[in-house]
């Protein structure tokens, strides 16, 4: 399509060289396009800088330690007790951000090792090997800094998602996820991404962004070298593979981090300069927080396709409150908007000072790729497939003696207590009965547990097993969406299921 403004990358770079390129951040561009229109904006502005600063779990670094004497072909290697992958011969290793320390668990991981390297701290390197005729050495135990090793290259398979879902939790217990701590009963919402500053959302058609695009990465210059894994441009979930020299990075823009009871990650600052080649690009860089929508998703359901509650905009998320069922729910951003602005401003400064030039990409990112689910061979069993359906129940007014007789006759351990409409109101275990007899109680309502841990019929058994383990219980009632009792599922049922699978 013909455009009124046509500007080449060479012209833009020439202006940078002369020191008169007009650079604005993507936040500033929103108002410029709104007030002047995209044509006028394209005439006036040469470059728009973007930025994001958030948890990018799919990150890591390639390190080369140099050869020891006698040489070793590392078979396994640990950096500050965090294992790195070394199945690429001799003395190369890849340290991934989410790998946990074997000593400190969630408190220290690959992301922290990468931060410590950037900070110039000493890293303890321990390696083992089986020994060969050419690589006879079997052990290494040394301390190194980034200055002692050859390459230290940040190399990330999946960064800078165009946008990300917002998370909340329908369950009645707190859950710990990669989207942070989610309180029970839709108690809070968490989100990620920088909205109008989002690098890929400012050029969603990849008119300028592609393989070979020079970017801001962790405080230094880096590159896009492929589309990211799980790139899903048709769902506005595009992302990129990035690479850059870790030795030149800056911990203002790169930090190891822990998501409570989930694991470690790497927070990374990333920015892409968008050359305003024409008014089409100017228009996409004018996108505002109101224009960028995402799905508020229920992380309480641990399935691949989590239920979507509704669509929300980044403007609402940044405002800090989201309406869920008529209630104002507070929002936590897991990304730092302040640092994202810092990235966009720093990149702007580099360009204005003639330190950063734009690169011509060698190939555009794919715009039609689909992210496929895993090919699984066995069907996942659900609670309804494993539970016992004919459950014996009692009412809250039934006597302890009656329940004791049931336990003795039928040989079970869990007695669900239901009201007249067969709605679950409590549970009594054989232990509760023992306590009831010891303390002289008479009615089941006196001893029943009222806050019952339950499962839903359509929940995968894996999720139910995790709940049994979490609450240290041996069985739980299965209910439908109205809270009506449908069955009971015990750890014995799950054990039997595993037996079947193995056979």
């Amino acid at each position, binding site marked *: 399509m013909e455009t009124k403004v046509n500007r080449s990358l060479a012209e833009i770079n020439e202006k940078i060289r002369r020191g008169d390129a007009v650079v604005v951040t993507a936040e500033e561009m929103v108002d410029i396009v709104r007030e002047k229109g995209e044509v006028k904006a394209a005439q006036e502005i040469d470059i728009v800088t973007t930025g994001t600063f958030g948890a990018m779990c799919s990150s890591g670094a390639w390190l080369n330690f140099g050869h020891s004497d006698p040489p070793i072909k590392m078979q396994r290697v640990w950096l500050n007790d965090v294992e790195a992958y070394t199945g690429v011969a001799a003395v190369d290793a890849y340290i991934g951000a989410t790998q946990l320390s074997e000593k400190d668990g969630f408190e220290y991981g690959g992301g922290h090792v990468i931060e410590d390297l950037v900070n110039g701290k000493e890293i303890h390197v321990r390696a083992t090997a089986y020994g060969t005729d050419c690589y006879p050495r079997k052990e290494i135990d040394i301390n190194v800094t980034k200055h002692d090793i050859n390459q230290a290259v940040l190399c990330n398979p999946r960064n800078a998602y165009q946008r990300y879902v917002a998370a909340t939790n329908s369950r009645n217990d707190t859950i710990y996820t990669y989207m942070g*701590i989610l*309180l029970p009963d839709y108690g809070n919402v968490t989100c990620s991404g920088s909205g109008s500053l989002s690098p890929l959302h400012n050029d969603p058609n990849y008119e300028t962004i592609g393989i070979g695009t020079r970017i801001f990465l962790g405080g230094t210059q880096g590159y896009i070298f492929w589309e990211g894994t799980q790139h899903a441009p048709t769902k506005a979930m595009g992302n990129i593979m990035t690479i850059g020299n870790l030795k030149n990075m800056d911990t203002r823009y790169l*930090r190891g981090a822990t998501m*409570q009871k989930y694991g470690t990650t790497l*927070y990374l600052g990333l920015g892409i300069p968008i050359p305003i080649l024409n008014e089409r690009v100017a228009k996409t860089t004018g996108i505002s927080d109101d224009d960028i929508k995402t799905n508020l998703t229920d992380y309480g359901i641990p399935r691949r396709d989590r239920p979507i509650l509704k669509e929300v905009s980044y403007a609402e998320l940044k405002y800090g409150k989201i309406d869920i069922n008529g209630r104002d729910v507070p*929002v936590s*951003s*897991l990304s730092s*908007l*302040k640092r994202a602005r810092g990235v966009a401003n720093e990149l702007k400064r580099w360009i204005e000072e003639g330190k950063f030039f734009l690169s011509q990409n060698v190939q555009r990112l794919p715009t039609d790729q689909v992210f496929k689910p895993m090919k699984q061979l066995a069907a996942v069993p659900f609670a309804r497939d494993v539970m016992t359906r004919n459950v014996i129940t009692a009412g809250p007014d039934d006597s302890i003696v009656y329940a004791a007789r049931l336990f003795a006759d039928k040989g079970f351990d869990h007695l669900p207590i239901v009201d007249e409409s067969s709605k679950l109101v409590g549970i009594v275990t054989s232990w509760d009965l023992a306590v009831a007899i010891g303390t002289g109680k008479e009615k089941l309502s006196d001893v029943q547990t009222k806050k019952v841990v339950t499962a839903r019929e359509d929940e995968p058994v894996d999720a139910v097993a995790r709940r049994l383990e979490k609450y240290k219980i041996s069985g739980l009632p299965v209910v439908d969406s109205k809270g009506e009792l449908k069955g009971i599922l015990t750890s014995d049922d799950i054990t039997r299921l595993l037996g079947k699978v193995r056979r």
Partner: protein
Amino acid sequence: MIKKILLKYRAQKAKEPIISSVIKESGLMLNILYAQFSLDGGEILISVDAPTPEVNKLIESFKRRGVEVTEITKAIQLHHEICFDCGACVSLCPTAALHVEHDKSIDLDEEKCIYCELCVPSCPVRALKLSKF
């Protein structure tokens, strides 16, 4: 003005209804934020919203009953040199003591903090620390 006061008492004192009697005597509403007890004795954190002279009288009443009283000015600390202003803590804070400032930095309004500690583990870089009383 809301003041927070930490009460410490020896184990033997646990038999006496100290809090009730102080409330009756002072006529002030006390909010118990946190309480724990061990063989070394008990620890109760209260907050009270009253003019300074009345709070001073309240402190005197506790002292008369053999309770050690410390006025708290800081407990949860936000270390700004560690914090990168994400906001993971903000939605967990029940009193909105942790909040987003106009420039999108995160700040802690210590007066509103009730030391529930929910925020402490939520911080990805452990910038929120509970300082010992």
